[in-house]
């Protein structure tokens, strides 16, 4: 008889991160709504405090998927595959939010919701690649093969992240160049705006960490169910 499994529950750190993130979220909203307006856009600039954190955390999430896909290929540990899955899922949500908030911001500033310019197109390609990641996971039934194929997409798909980030520099773009340029360290933003942005980025990072850990536990529970099903099948074979 199989030993009774210990129930998988999120640990204290996960609950702590989630609680802290949710607790600070209204503070982040307050900071964003009291930040000064831009000389050109007026209060429209406040969309930035939602748009930029979601975009950056989408990039971060896909990077974590990339890392854990590599780890899985090297160590064959299903746990790494579950973290890669969790991070890709949350990255897809964040990148989707970034695309939507970007469209809402573009309409009053650029004049259109969408146009096929380099930054928007490369970001849409990035989004489509990770949608494909989940379709691929769903398409393959064999767990071992599924994990390997998903790891391959998680690694190769990540190439789109630096392409998307650098698209505003490499090509002639309608989208503005980076206000916080990680390649030069230059910040083209008033200090109060920068602080408000960093604070919201911190909050979204906490929420990302909480979500990915929470989703990891859920994935582990699901995997436990799958294993139990497999064990049941083997038991039936032995009986026959």
């Amino acid at each position, binding site marked *: 008889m199989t030993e009774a499994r210990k129930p998988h529950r999120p640990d204290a750190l996960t609950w702590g991160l989630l609680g802290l993130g949710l607790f600070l979220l209204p503070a982040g909203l307050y900071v964003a709504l009291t930040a000064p307006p831009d*000389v*050109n856009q007026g209060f429209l600039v406040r969309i930035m405090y939602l748009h930029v954190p979601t975009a950056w955390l989408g990039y971060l999430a896909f990077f974590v998927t990339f890392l854990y896909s590599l780890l899985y290929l090297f160590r064959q540990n299903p746990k790494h595959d579950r973290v890669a899955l969790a991070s890709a899922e949350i990255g897809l949500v964040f990148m989707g939010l970034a695309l939507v908030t970007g469209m809402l911001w573009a309409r009053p500033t650029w004049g259109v919701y969408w146009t096929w310019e380099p930054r928007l197109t490369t970001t849409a390609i990035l989004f489509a690649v990770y949608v494909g990641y989940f*379709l691929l996971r769903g398409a393959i039934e064999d767990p071992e093969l599924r994990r390997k194929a998903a790891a391959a997409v998680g690694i190769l798909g990540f190439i789109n992240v630096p392409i998307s980030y650098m698209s505003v520099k490499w090509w002639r773009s309608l989208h503005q160049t980076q206000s916080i340029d990680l390649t030069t360290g230059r910040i083209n933003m008033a200090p109060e705006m920068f602080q408000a942005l960093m604070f919201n980025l911190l909050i979204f990072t906490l929420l990302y960490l909480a979500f990915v850990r929470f989703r990891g536990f859920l994935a582990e529970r699901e995997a436990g169910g799958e294993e139990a099903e497999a064990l049941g099948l083997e038991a039936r074979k032995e009986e026959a």
Partner: protein
Amino acid sequence: MRRKYLLGILIILGALGYMLFGGLGRNLVYFVTPSEYFLEEARYQNRPLRLGGLVKEGTVAYDRDSLELRFVLTDGVKEVPVYHRGTPPGMFREGQGAVVEGRFQGGVFQSTNLLVKHSEAYQAPEAGWTPEEVRRLLQEAR
């Protein structure tokens, strides 16, 4: 392989192909500047294109009733007169970056789509903004 997921994967691959070759292939050089246009005028003749530059100071003429907008687009070297019909974006003004889609008729660029290109710099108004200044700023932005 499960069939319905396979169909989804094919759709995604189709979307990727469309975006890579349609969206990206034609738009890496998203717009040309007036100088670039005049340099290769024959190449762009009778073809739709996108022009980008700054709206020259003192050249904007907008009729709210007929929604006719005329201005000069410049890159500091060459200038192109532009005619656009329709309400311009809220941030459109003199000195602002702009991208126009359309084609030339005579010497005037007939714009069918007018986009504002703003910079990456975000600055608060000078001297500690007050609610009154903010209200005036919003009026100007409108």
